């Protein structure tokens, strides 16, 4: 018996560019269970990033329903969506998106600041998270003093700051060399296997997708394939 953490019904997203209307998502239905390790594949413009933005509550669909833990997110206010992003979702981006001129530690503390967690607890947890990704000795380094792989590990630590259930990673290995890519994917695998996080990764690289249990392929705003790479659902 698995718990449906994300359920999407008939979701459509249309970008109105004035003269022409582009349907980025075309009436999508998708269900994701708690603890799944999923990759979303597709060429650029296939709608995978649009889906990611909507899943991350950064954007709203034109029509359709998005139930996050059984609650329809479309009915929530902007401030409530901010709280959802803060508490329930951890973002990891292709270009790391660390705040420059701000130490690794402060970057990791950021979601906790918006989550109104006290300064001491914040610092303690941020240090622990950095230790978990192997960067305990880099906590006071600025982003420009870190390598790509290190930056992405800081970003993962930051994504985990408020203990979200869902991790959304948009091309997390896109700017990394192959060795760092493997290291980052191993961290995601660990998070999924040991911590039970639901991990959703957008990628266009087949070998990155191979790390995950389920590969969903997009084309022109439609899901054209949804396959399991190994036996799952035994939990």
């Amino acid at each position, binding site marked *: 018996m698995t718990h449906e953490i994300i359920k999407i019904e008939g979701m459509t997203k249309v970008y109105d560019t004035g003269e022409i209307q582009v349907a980025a998502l075309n009436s999508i239905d998708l269900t994701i269970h708690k603890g799944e390790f999923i990759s979303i594949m597709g060429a650029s413009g296939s709608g995978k990033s649009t889906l990611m933005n909507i899943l*991350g509550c950064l954007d709203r669909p034109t029509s359709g329903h998005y139930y996050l833990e059984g609650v329809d997110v479309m009915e929530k206010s902007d401030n409530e969506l901010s709280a959802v992003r*803060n508490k329930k979702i951890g973002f990891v981006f292709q270009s790391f998106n*660390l705040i420059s001129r701000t130490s690794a530690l402060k970057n990791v503390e950021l979601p906790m*600041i918006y989550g109104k967690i006290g300064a001491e607890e914040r610092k303690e947890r941020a240090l622990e998270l950095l230790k978990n990704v192997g960067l305990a000795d880099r906590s006071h380094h600025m982003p420009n003093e870190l390598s790509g792989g290190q930056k992405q590990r800081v970003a993962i630590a930051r994504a985990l700051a408020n203990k979200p259930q869902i991790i959304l990673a948009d091309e997390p290995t896109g700017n990394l060399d192959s060795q760092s890519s493997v290291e980052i994917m191993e961290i995601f695998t660990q998070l999924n296997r040991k911590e039970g996080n639901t991990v959703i990764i957008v990628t266009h690289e087949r070998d990155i997708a191979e790390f995950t249990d389920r590969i969903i392929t997009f084309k022109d705003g439609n899901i054209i394939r949804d396959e399991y790479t190994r036996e799952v659902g035994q939990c």
Partner: protein
Amino acid sequence: MLVFENIMLALTAIKSNKMRSFLTMLGIIIGISSVIAITSIGDSAKGVVGKEFESFGMNNMYLYPNWELTQDGVEESDLITPEDIEALKARFPEDILYAVPNVSANSDTKVGRVEGKFSMTGVGADYGKFKKNLSILHGRMINKSDVAGGKDTIVIEKKAAMNLFNKENAVGETISVVINGEMKDLTVVGVYEVPSSLFDSMFMSQSYSAYVPYPILVVGDGSAWAVELYTNEKKDQAALGNEFVKYLSRIKDKAPNFYIFESAESQMTTINKVLGTLSLAIGAIAAISLVVGGIGIMNIMLVSVTERTREIGIRKSLGARTNDILMQFLIESMIISAIGGVIGTTLGVAIAAVGMSFAKIAVVIDPKVIVLAVGFSAIVGMFFGLYPARKAAKLDPIEALRYE
């Protein structure tokens, strides 16, 4: 909500762009410092005027006919007679402490080969008691018997003694002057000194000042165009003046406002009013530069929002609410202008202090002005920071994240 974090964040942002932050503050610094310097200089000048008036007695007053009501010049019947003065004194025994016809005379004099010119003021017996800044160096002031007997005595200023007699103590010397067409030899009974005053330069005079008993200056029946009073200083001078004028007009059978009064207090009020208006006007012009400074802040905050678009997107994706971003930028602009305000205040006070020390005037700084200036600069920061902050807060997170 997150105020402390936002302040730390703002300070970091200001520190990481030191030059830019300073230039942005400069507008506020110049605005605040000029407002404070100007108002402090104005207040200091007022303080000086007040001291000056106190030194020669705030209860000094003159009564005289209102020139505007005397159509063909002052007539014989308009003059104030010794009887009028006695009547006034009798009517207001508590309030009039000293009343003497306002008489004066100018005369050339020659002592040996040294020439000089005297400007003599007729005074009564107690004049020295009321004229507070006058100090007798040698001899004495004009006294009761000088006045009663109309004695040919004179009290001269130290400068005259030094120049004419080549010594400070000129008591006993004789000075020949012409009073009302008559040659008179006056015996010096005292030498006085008055501390140098702000008004010295206003009344440029070649002649020496001197005091003589008033009876030797009066003509005819002793009438004069004005009467000099020293009043009960515990009472409201304007109210006293009005009562005196009303009474004098009545006994002289004139219209109630035929005579007018001029008190030291009313003169001081006039001067202070002029000074106050002047510093307010210049201060208002200086305040315009504060607005210009505010526009500078707005401009740089708009640049900052654009530069940090991506950062705003990141913060939003991590759970920052619209208000969190709004506060972040608002607090940053407020801190920039508050720091500018504090620096400007310090600078303004320093300018006022240096300027006043050159003029050898005690600096008066109204703490209200400082609170007002710093408060106003923070409001300027808030007002001009609001638009950029709202712009930042309203950014769409996806657009912001994509921004290069």
